[in-house]
Structures are given as C-alpha cells and as structure tokens.
C-alpha cells in the first residue's frame, strides 16, 4: 500500500516485476489458487478486498436498490384523504419524450368547469423509457419513479396502466425514497391543500377511495404496494379492453382538438392518420390506434357541426 492515499482511491500493490522462465506461470497459478481458496471464505463486499465470491443469487438474494433508482412512474395520493396530488397540469405529458402519458382533466360535475384534478391518467409502461423526466418536471410531486422492475408479462395489455393501476399512497413512496420525500413533503402537501380547495365531492380522489369498492372489484393496487415486490401492473386486468378504448378516445379527442380548425368538414377516411404525429407505417399497433383516432375525430367533428 502506498503511504499517501487519496480519499476514494484504493491502491492495490501487486508488487512484482516482470518475470521469465515460467515463473510468471507459477505466480499466476498462485494467484488463481488464492482466489479459489478465498472463494470459499467470506463474500467480497468491501472494496479493498481483492478476492471472494461477489455473486448475488438474484431471485433469492437482492441487493437493495439505491433510493434514486428509477424504473416506471407511479401516481401518488394522500394516505389520509385519498386525494391524488396530480392537478392535470399536463407538464409530464408534454415533456415525456416517447409521449406515453395521456391525461384528461376532471370537471366539476355541477358547473362543468375544469378543476385541478385528473379524470383519467393513462401511461403506457411498455413504451416508457424510464427517463424520469415526468417525475423531474412535475411541480406538484404527484408522479414519482417506482423501484419495481419485475414486470414481464405474456401479453402487453397489463402494461397499459390507468389511474387505478398507477395509484400508490404517499406512504409507499416515503418508504421507497425517505430522503427525497422528506425534502418534498411540505411543499407537496401544501400544494395539495390548495388543489383540494377547488375540488368538490369525490373529484380528485383515487378511485379505490372515492367509491366503496364493489364486491367483484379487482384487488386494489394499494394492497400490493409492497416495495419492489409485485409488478405494478402485473395482475391481469379484465378491463384492459376498456382501458385501451379509453386511451384511444383520449388520443382521438386530443387529435380532434388540434385538428378542429381544419376547413374540410368531410369525414376523414378511416385508416388515415389524422393529427400531428406521423405514425410509423407497417406497425400494426400504430395503425390500429390511428384508425381509432381518425374515426373518433371524424365522429366528433360531425357531432360538433350538427
């Protein structure tokens, strides 16, 4: 070991010059046998250790994930009141690079005015690239990155996750990232108070809390909110078709909104993508979505004209 050690630098003295006449072989065998012996000793854990097995036997053993580890986004709601922190500000939807977040804002049932809450929030986990920009940009600390990573499924349906599937209590996130939440908590809770003042009834409450759960309701996602355990959207969701339809509807409405000033009132031929983003041709999924979108947009425009 060298005498003057810099912090963070671990000096390992190999201490032998060039060798010849087979002595290198003998020395190499010595090194290898030392590693063989030490492999049956204590695990390699400290950085200054140079030998010992470092394998983590994954399904049984897991290394704890660092607090800032991120995989897929979740939506937080307040444990006590059941109110979601999200205010439908659309920041995350705008910044998401692959555009996999789809939001509709809630309206006051009585007055029809927009309120700072979500009506639906759909996230396509299968296309999310885990960049964390949505969590980064959210001014209300409403969307956070989860640690769960074991999400493989046989079909892609469970990977289109809606408001119910995304909901996690604040306490869950506080347990995942205690430090980050400690810094964000006060501001987030204060902003939530502000939002709640403009919400009425059950608007803005996470669906599992808003309505008494029907007997045949699928297990609430809160129940399986164990840290990094169950896949967030893993359980087969019977309502996946409904979810996909709603997603298409949101897309179509948005497309129609951007398309509204278009002069030609003739119904757009079905199958032709209407709306801003060009879709990659040949992609079955894209084609299907585009078809739904175009049909809905056309229908909406006709309804508006009448």
């Amino acid at each position, binding site marked *: 070991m060298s005498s003057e050690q810099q912090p963070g630098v671990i000096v390992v003295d190999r201490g032998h010059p*060039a060798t*010849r006449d087979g002595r290198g*072989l003998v020395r190499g*065998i010595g090194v*290898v046998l030392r590693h063989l012996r030490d*492999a049956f000793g204590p695990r390699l854990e400290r950085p200054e250790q140079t030998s*010992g*097995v*470092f394998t983590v036997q994954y399904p049984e053993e897991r290394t704890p994930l660092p607090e800032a580890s991120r995989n897929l986004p979740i939506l937080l709601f307040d444990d006590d009141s059941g109110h979601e922190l999200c205010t439908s500000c659309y920041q995350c939807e705008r910044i998401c690079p692959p555009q996999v977040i789809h939001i509709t804002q809630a309206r006051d049932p009585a007055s029809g005015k927009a309120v700072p809450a979500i009506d639906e929030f759909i996230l396509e986990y299968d296309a999310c690239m885990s960049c964390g920009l949505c969590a980064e940009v959210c001014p209300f600390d409403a969307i956070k990155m989860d640690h769960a990573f074991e999400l493989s499924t046989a079909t892609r349906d469970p990977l289109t996750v809606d408001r119910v599937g995304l909901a996690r209590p604040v306490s869950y996130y506080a347990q995942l990232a205690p430090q980050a939440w400690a810094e964000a908590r006060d501001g987030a809770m204060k902003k939530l108070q502000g939002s709640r003042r403009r919400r009425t009834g059950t608007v803005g409450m996470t669906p599992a809390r808003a309505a008494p759960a029907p007997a045949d309701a699928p297990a609430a996602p809160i129940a399986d909110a164990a840290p990094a355990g169950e896949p967030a959207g893993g359980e087969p969701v019977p309502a996946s078709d409904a979810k996909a339809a709603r997603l298409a509807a949101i897309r179509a409405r948005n497309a129609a909104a951007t398309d509204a000033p278009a002069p030609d009132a003739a119904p757009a031929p079905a199958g032709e993508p209407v709306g801003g983003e060009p879709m990659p041709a040949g992609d079955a999924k894209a084609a299907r979505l585009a078809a739904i979108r175009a049909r809905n947009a056309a229908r909406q425009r006709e309804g508006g004209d009448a």
Partner: protein
Amino acid sequence: MNRTIVISQILVIEQAPGWLVAALNHAIIAGVLLIGGAITMMLQVWVERRLIARMQDRLGPNRVGPEGILQSIADGIKMFTKEDIIPRAADRWVHLLAPIVALAPIAMMLAVLPWGRGLVAVDLEVGVLYIAAVSSISGVGLMMAGWGSRNTFALLGAMRSIAQLIAYEIPLIIALLGIVLLTGGMSLARMPELQAGIPLFGSSIPGAPDLGLGWFIFTPVGLLGGIIFFICALAEGERTPFDIPEADSEIVAGYMTEYSGMKFAVFYIAQYLLNFALAVLSAVVFLGGWQGPGVAWLADAGLGAAASLLSLLWLLLKAWGLFMLMVVIRAAVPRLRVDQLMSFAWKYLLPLALVNVASAALWVGLTEWSSIEWGNLLPVDGLAPWQRIGVAALVTAVINLGATRWVLRINRAPAAAPVVVPA
C-alpha cells in the same frame, strides 16, 4: 499377467459361436468406453465451469441438480433442440462430416489406453505409434470444418489449428520417443507395468517393496519429457494458453463459427474427450498409469479384481489431477500470440525434446549395455543395477538441466527498458 479381461469369460457364453463372442466383446467394450467418455465429458465441463468460476470470484452453474451437476445435461438438451444451420455457401457434405472426422479418432484413442491392471480394450504392440497417427487425423476434421464453412473466421481458425497441431505434434512425439527408448517397446499396455517399484530405482533393488511408484516422471528423462509432453498436450487439446484456433475474442469461435446445435456439441465433446485422453496418456506414460501404492499388494494377495479396481481409481485420480491442472492453467495464463506459439514450439520444446531423446539413449546405455557393448571403455559390469541407475540418473540430470538452462538463455529476449509508471 493377464493383460486383457476377456469379457466372454465373465459372461460364460461358452456355447456361442466364436464370431458372436468376439462381436459381443467389442460391442460391450466400445459401449463402456463411449458411454464412459460421454459421462466423463459432462463431468469435466461441470468441474471446469465450477472451478474456474471460483477462481474468478464467481459461483458458476449451481441451479440444475445438486450444485448444478446436471447443468451439462440441460445444455445437451438445449443443443439437441437447436436449429441446425448450414450456411448457403458452405460445402454441405464437408460441413456435415467435419465434426465426425474430428470426434472419431479421439474416440479411437480411448481403445488402446490401459485403464487399469489388466483393463485394456485393445493391446496394440505399437500403441504409441497408433496414438500419434490417430490423433493427428482429427486435424483433418478441423480443416474440413474451416474450409467447408466458407467463412473467413472459420478458415483462419482452421489454419491456426493446423499450424499449431503440426508444430506441437513433433515435440509431443519426440517426448514420447524418449520413453519408448526407456521401455524398449511401443506398447502402451506395458508401460505401467514397467513403472512398478519405488521412485527412480523401480524394481531394481532386490527386496525393496513394490510401492507402484517407479514412475518415469521421477527420472530426469521422464521429468523433462513429461513437462514437454504436457505442454504439447495443452496445445493439442487447444487449451488456454494455446486456444488460439478458437480465440473467441479474435476470430469468433474459429473453425466452429458456423456450427450450431448438435454439430457444435460434437466438436465440444471431441475437445473435452481429447483433453481427457491426453491427460490419461500423460498419466500412463509418465505418471505410472494405473500403478500406485496398494495395487501390487492386492494382486499378490490374490485379489485380482480388487487390484484392478484400485488401479483404475489410481489412473482416474491422476488423469483428473492433470485435468484440474489444465483448468488452473487456463484460469491463470492468458492466450499466446501466434508468433509466441510458434517460437515456443520450435525454439524451446523441439531442442529440449531432442536433447531428451539423447539423454534417454544414454540412460539405456548406462543401465543396460554391458562393458563389451561399451567397447570396454566403461567398466559398468561391476555395478549393481540400482547403482547403474543412480549413475545414469546423475548423468542425464546434468545433461537435461544444462540443456534447459542453455535453451532458456539463448532464447531470452534482450532486457526491456524498465517501465516507468507515472506516479
């Protein structure tokens, strides 16, 4: 001494016609050898993977079966179910035949190896010659694979392997030649029998116990020959540091690049079987084969079957020990460059092997010739056999040691300038 156990005597099928007995004999022996070979190969792969893993601070395959011992079977099933891909530009038949041509000679090598006291499938008088001839056939298989694949990497790998096989075949056979001189015959089955007794002196001292330790490795000639042979065996078996033909970091997988599924598996089996056969051969020729403490004692006590079993255990122990040594060397030494490979064969091993043959001849002269054969120049007749062996050992030790030092010195590269490591 019964060199071969005739299976028909065990099975007691006296009424059967002679040709049927012979056919059964051969079928049973071939079956035992080949099944044993396959099981050995699976065990080898598992042992190697687990050992190397520990040496590299990993655990290795430990999921299939207890401690992962069935991993090779799982791999075998995977190989079986894989698609067999033949490149469109490949020469179909050459591509198909290459693995077979590579494996068959190695399986044939197993036939002449003496596995234990009296356990040899075929006792050839020219066993050493047979081994040398047959083992070089598999090189043809490698070249067929490289050429038939129509792939540049495969061809490069095949060329490298041929260059390597030819370069190392020569010192390998010359190293064997020294022992052939000592034993005065080419029969592999006889070699272990001549390595009875005590270290160095064998059975030359009257009254000394037969420990089964008169291994050739304890004589100067056998030591140098054994080291040369083992290094050449590493090269023949394409073990690291001589795995140049299939250097995966340079030329994908060498001649195996275009092989998949069972054809690939056959190459794989051939390689491990060759390694094992060479380990057994080294053990037979230099480490006393099946000789070991207790074998002669059991045989003298009339327990022939127990002696055979113990001798088989001794041989397997030695062979597995050598295989472990190969594994350790693989973990410890990086791959050579092609020029280093060639200069090592031609500049170090070949001269030393030639000197070793001369030493062996001198040994035979000093221990077996009479004074008259020496032209009355050396008064060797008055010495007891063990005294003559002592003299011969001394003389050959001096010659071999001197030659080794000389070869190492003349090949030494000029000292490089000291490397200054920036502080």
